[in-house]
């Protein structure tokens, strides 16, 4: 129960990561490509990769803090 509450509080803060993920994906992709379609496709890939990485870290931390 306590873990679920902590998770709910933390989820609110995670919204601040959304604009950052979008901006980082777009700018990084735009520095690697010149054509708009390739920039968007690359940005989508990078954004997905960042979200996946964050989720993996979340899983590791959740497992480590299990029953703490």
């Amino acid at each position, binding site marked *: 129960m306590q873990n679920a509450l902590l998770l709910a509080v933390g989820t609110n803060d995670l919204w601040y990561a959304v604009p*950052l993920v979008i*901006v980082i994906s777009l700018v990084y992709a735009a520095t690697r490509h010149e054509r708009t379609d*390739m920039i968007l496709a690359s940005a989508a890939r990078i954004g997905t990769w960042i979200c996946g990485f964050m989720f993996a870290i979340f899983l590791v931390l959740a497992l480590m803090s299990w029953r703490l």
Partner: protein
Amino acid sequence: MAKATPSRTAARGSAAASPDQVPLRDPVLAAALAWLIPGAGHWYQGRRSKAVLFFVCILGTFIYGLYLGEGRVVYASMRSEDRRLHYFSQLGAGLPALPALVQAYRVNHGKDPIKFPIWDRFMVPPSLVKKPVEGDRRDAADELDELQKTLNRYFELGTVYTMVAGLLNVLVIYDAWGGPAEPDMPAKKEEDEEASSEPPSEPSG
């Protein structure tokens, strides 16, 4: 991150570049402009859509970070009690981060900091003089303590946003100077495909 040298050198300084080349004009001037105002270097090179993208994304992130931190998360301080190393990455955003240097100079030379319309102490390094706090468990707190307390997590969030904006602009400066890391060359690809589909020519003689 390796840059494609042939593409950028071929286009550098040439007025009419072929479609697969990126016209970089004067790369050093473009890089300087890109640092000063995010996107300005690309605008100067005629890469207008990327210029708008960089301007909106980087400046938007920087301003949102400032808003979260109420104008206090970007400041220059090298005092032993408060080494603000974050400022080095925030400085990557260029002109928007420069008022912090002016404010720090004025404070260090005993002058009053410039007052901005929205926030009185915009980009002013926080005072480290401890003052007694009434009704608080702490004996005394300086302005940085108070900022951390009042802004709470927004102090860190604002710092992260402004730092990310500055660091992203470093990539943009590099792009303005050297062109994209992976230049899209449809014309060259088509040529390669055509060459590979043609039968090998017989040796003469």
